[in-house]
């Protein structure tokens, strides 16, 4: 069948599927008149449509050999209940079980008493044995000895422990009469201070344990009991670790992890290394619940898949916000009273403890405790020290911040999102497919895989099966020098391929080092091996980029380009690859002029490749257009996006949803040119297409809504803008949400709604920081704007706003429209403080920078000039 035949068959099937039996038969007869073979073929497909076949059976049925194996361990892991039911009177060590007081997933809890001293009450925990082995027993008793040394008034003492005759590990702990910390606070109707003081006790206990390198790993209200005297006791210290280890010893990979999803730190849920910061997160979660009555992430799912998937969207929540939301829904006065007391520093403390990124939290329980003490004493807290200049002077003036920050949206939204939809087109790209290096790598890879398949791990060889590819690669790389000493070209080739593989298996540093060696080997063979050298340089450039060594990446890619040029270069694919690396780097480093030039060259090269359909160039149109937009060349961007839009409309078979990308580009271009009414028309069309062709929660549909919100704000429809932003942002990814919040905040500053602006901008800044973009132009603009808004709000303090400006220069980002916006914001602030001369000077600088950067007619230049004149 040819492509044309298929297009016809596909369309006819669509048509026939919609007809009833009679109409279908009639239509088939009609087709048979023109083309009997086609009709027969369609009939065969319709017959197949009516009966079940291979594809309905499910892969587990069809390929049980693979699938059953995959699903087997579940059965093994779910067995193993407590071997013998524990019973009253059972004697363990020096203790006797009295009554069962609880049971859970990991085992049972009993009240017990000491055999020779009935007065001494203990809690005995019996743990469901995951495995019984001498190694586990040994590990268990060693850990127990370490835990037994924990001596703190707020930690329930571990008294004894062991493994019973039937293999059940058990331990006895000081028996605490009391209720859990949250219930205690509720029943005693404690105020905010008293609640913080309760948690401080927990912090002290945890800090002492952490100083002995013991991490709790399962802090939650039910492990924090408060007795009648108000003393808190932390239960089960280090037990989670003990259980984890016993699971690890099993080496099943069944992934038994002991934690409570609602209070666990994200890294714990992901199965990453867990340290003191995980306890800090849990302490923050308990504090959050003490203050608001509910845990910070109540929506966390109990099923592992969803739990993990949900982590992406989590941000550090603020207790005061939760309290305010709840106080709106209830008449309880206490809630809004709490909200006022909690808002501010305590909010900041909780948010710092609950930061999704472990390194951004307090380092340990001690640091969290210190800040809580500072709060209790009314001192400035450490979590806020970096913004110490936030108390300043009140102010009234306002001015417009022109178009807001569009730039990073394009990175996050258009550049990234647009491309994936065109993957199909790229995959058909014959020129790219013919890439010889890829083929060579593929062959080598298959060769390695065949080695791997041939060597069956020895039976009974234990757990060595996991090594495999890495092992072979390392072994192979190690032998290259001795065994292939006489074949330098093959040696370099294998080294290059294998290092690339090693890198793709996650061993970046190791693979990179060896790839560098391959490059050196090729260089020694120059000029005979220059073709291979180019490919190796392109690979090493990519690896440098991944290793966050942009200078090395750039040098390697440039060298590859130079070689291609000196060769006379018919290797278009390589040239495109090298320039793609450079273009990415330029974009990453905010060098928009360079990114534009490179993308122009790439587009030019792609045009020269024969056999490409116009639609195959869509991705390059998009890249160049977004580079224009990013470089504030709005008119160029608009032109190219309109070309792209036309191209998409003209391509048969191109899904209409793709036009959302071109239309959103056009809308941003118009917004940049202050053509708000036209932008409105385009966003309307874009939203209509988005709703029709994409799901409501598709990232692009959500982002389109914030674009619409920007247009609304620019047109003065503030209420609408607020609603659209508020509705869209919770559904966005961090990177797009950060920009949306920044734009929202900028609009709020324009309107003089400083308190709200501060809240939005703080959220934006956290997102910038957590995605390591605090030092990007929009991130810096966000900081400057936040400082400005704070200064407007609080007239008594000195401002950090100018410091934020200087940061642009320190990072070499002077040539940025976001810097101009930041300057305008600060100039407005200075004017409001009566520092007119400084304000005018800054306004003049902004105007001249904007003119140099964007041209005199750019809205931002006009804005800056108007401000300077006014002053």
């Amino acid at each position, binding site marked *: 069948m040819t492509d044309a035949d298929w297009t016809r068959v596909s369309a006819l099937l669509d048509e026939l599927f919609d007809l009833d039996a009679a109409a279908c038969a009639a239509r088939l007869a009609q087709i048979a008149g023109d083309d009997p073979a086609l009709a027969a073929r369609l009939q065969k497909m319709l017959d197949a449509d009516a009966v079940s076949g291979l594809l309905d059976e499910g892969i587990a049925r069809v390929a049980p050999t693979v699938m059953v*194996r995959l699903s087997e361990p579940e059965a093994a892991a779910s067995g193993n209940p407590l071997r013998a039911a524990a019973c009253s009177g059972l004697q363990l060590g020096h203790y006797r079980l009295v009554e069962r007081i609880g049971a859970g997933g990991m085992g049972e809890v009993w009240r017990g008493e000491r055999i020779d001293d009935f007065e001494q009450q203990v809690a005995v925990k019996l743990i469901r044995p995951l495995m019984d082995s001498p190694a586990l027993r040994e590990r268990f008793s060693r850990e127990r000895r370490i835990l037994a040394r924990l001596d703190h008034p707020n930690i329930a003492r571990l008294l004894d422990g062991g493994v019973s005759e039937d293999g059940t590990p058990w331990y006895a702990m000081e028996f605490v009469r009391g209720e859990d910390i949250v219930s205690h606070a509720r029943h005693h109707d404690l105020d905010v201070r008293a609640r913080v003081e309760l948690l401080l006790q927990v912090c002290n206990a945890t800090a002492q344990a952490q100083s002995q390198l013991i991490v709790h790993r399962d802090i939650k209200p039910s492990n924090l009991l408060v007795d009648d005297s108000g003393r808190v006791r932390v239960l089960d210290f280090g037990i989670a670790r003990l259980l984890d280890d016993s699971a690890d010893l099993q080496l099943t990979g069944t992934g038994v992890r002991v934690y409570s999803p609602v209070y666990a730190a994200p890294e714990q849920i992901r199965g990453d290394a867990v340290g003191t910061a995980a306890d800090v997160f849990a302490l923050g979660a308990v504090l959050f619940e003490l203050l608001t009555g509910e845990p910070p992430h109540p929506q966390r799912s109990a099923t592992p898949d969803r739990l993990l998937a949900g982590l992406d969207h989590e941000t550090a929540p603020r207790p005061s916000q939760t309290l305010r939301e709840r106080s709106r829904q209830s008449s309880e006065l206490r809630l809004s009273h709490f909200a006022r007391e909690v808002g501010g520093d305590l909010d900041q403390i909780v948010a710092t403890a609950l930061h999704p990124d472990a390194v951004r939290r307090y380092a340990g329980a001690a640091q969290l405790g210190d800040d809580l003490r500072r709060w209790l004493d009314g001192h400035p807290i450490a979590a806020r020290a970096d913004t110490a200049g936030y108390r300043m002077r009140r102010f009234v003036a306002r001015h417009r911040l022109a178009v807001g920050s569009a730039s990073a949206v394009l990175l996050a939204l258009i550049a990234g999102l647009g491309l994936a939809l065109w993957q199909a087109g790229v995959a058909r790209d014959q020129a790219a497919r013919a890439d010889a290096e890829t083929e060579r790598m593929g062959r080598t890879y298959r060769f390695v895989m065949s080695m791997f398949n041939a060597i069956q791990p020895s039976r009974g060889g234990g757990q060595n099966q996991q090594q495999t590819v890495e092992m072979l690669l390392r072994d192979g790389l190690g032998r290259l020098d001795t065994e292939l000493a006489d074949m330098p070209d093959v040696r370099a080739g294998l080294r290059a391929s294998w290092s690339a593989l090693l890198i793709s298996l996650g061993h970046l540093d190791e693979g990179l080092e060896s790839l560098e060696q391959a490059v050196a080997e090729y260089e020694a063979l120059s000029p005979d091996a220059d073709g291979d050298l180019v490919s190796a340089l392109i690979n090493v450039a990519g690896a440098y980029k991944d290793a966050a060594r942009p200078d090395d990446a750039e040098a390697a890619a440039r060298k590859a380009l130079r070689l291609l040029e000196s060769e006379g270069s018919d290797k278009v694919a390589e040239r495109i690859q090298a320039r793609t690396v450079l273009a990415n780097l330029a974009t990453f480093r905010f060098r928009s002029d360079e990114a534009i030039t490179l993308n122009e060259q790439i587009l030019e090269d792609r045009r020269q490749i024969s056999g490409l359909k116009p639609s195959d160039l869509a991705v390059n149109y998009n890249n160049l257009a977004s580079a224009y937009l990013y470089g504030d060349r709005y008119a160029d961007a608009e032109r190219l996006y309109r070309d792209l839009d036309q191209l998409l409309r003209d391509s048969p078979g191109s899904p209409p949803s793709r036009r959302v990308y071109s239309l959103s580009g056009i809308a941003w271009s118009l917004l940049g040119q202050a053509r708000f009414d036209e932008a409105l028309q385009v966003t309307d069309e874009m939203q209509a297409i988005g709703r029709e062709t994409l799901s409501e929660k598709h990232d692009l549909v959500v982002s389109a809504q914030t674009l619409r919100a920007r247009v609304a704000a620019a047109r003065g429809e503030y209420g609408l803008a607020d609603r659209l932003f508020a509705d869209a942002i919770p559904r966005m990814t961090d990177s797009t949400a950060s920009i949306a919040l920044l734009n929202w905040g900028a609009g709020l500053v324009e309107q003089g709604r400083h308190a709200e602006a501060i809240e939005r901008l703080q959220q934006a800044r956290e997102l910038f920081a957590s995605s390591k973009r605090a030092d990007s132009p929009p991130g810096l603009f966000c900081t400057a704007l936040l400082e400005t808004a704070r200064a407007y709000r609080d007239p008594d303090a000195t401002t950090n706003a100018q410091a934020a400006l200087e940061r642009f220069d320190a990072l070499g980002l002077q040539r940025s429209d976001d810097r101009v916006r930041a300057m305008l914001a600060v100039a407005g602030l200075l004017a409001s403080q009566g520092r007119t001369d400084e304000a005018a000077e800054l306004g003049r600088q902004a105007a001249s920078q904007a003119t140099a950067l964007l041209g005199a007619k750019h809205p931002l230049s006009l804005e800056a000039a108007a401000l300077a004149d006014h002053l």
Partner: protein
Amino acid sequence: MGEVSVLLAAANAGDRAASDRAFELVYADLKRLARRQLRIASPGHGATSLVHEAWLKLARPDAMNVNDREHFFALAARAMRQLVIDHARNRAAVKRGSGQIDEDLDAVATRVGSVGDTDRLLELDQALERLGAMDPQLVRLVEMRFFAGLELSEIADVSGRSERSLKRDWRKARAVLHANLDGSDLHD
């Protein structure tokens, strides 16, 4: 950022080698994961869990945007197909008396008593190959639904396409492939 995220980002920027490397990485790891007894909900969901597992392990979801996610699932589904087909080939070779049996995986099959539909799978693979030349989108759908065991709603979620249009495509792919498992029709 996870290695796969980086590769997918590069692939999205037109770097074909990165896309291939990502595929190799996913394939190798699916294979390794298969060997390493994973936690899996139920036999019927083996493939899905495997793909999700690989996704969590390799892609570090925290570092990936929505489109990379679509790309990843397409890639993982393709790798899943490759894994199943490679295995079927291996079995076919063993049946013919050549080739090295994959002991690990096969020990179980004997116990289960079914060797599966090796030949039909290989036919399906060829039919998919031919269909892919004309309509790669349909093939990706079959890979995600049949080989990776993703629900249409999940596919809609990652691809941004409507469930209705996916359903229509699935029906079409199913009719065409079933009608052509003997390979008579899709030949050039």
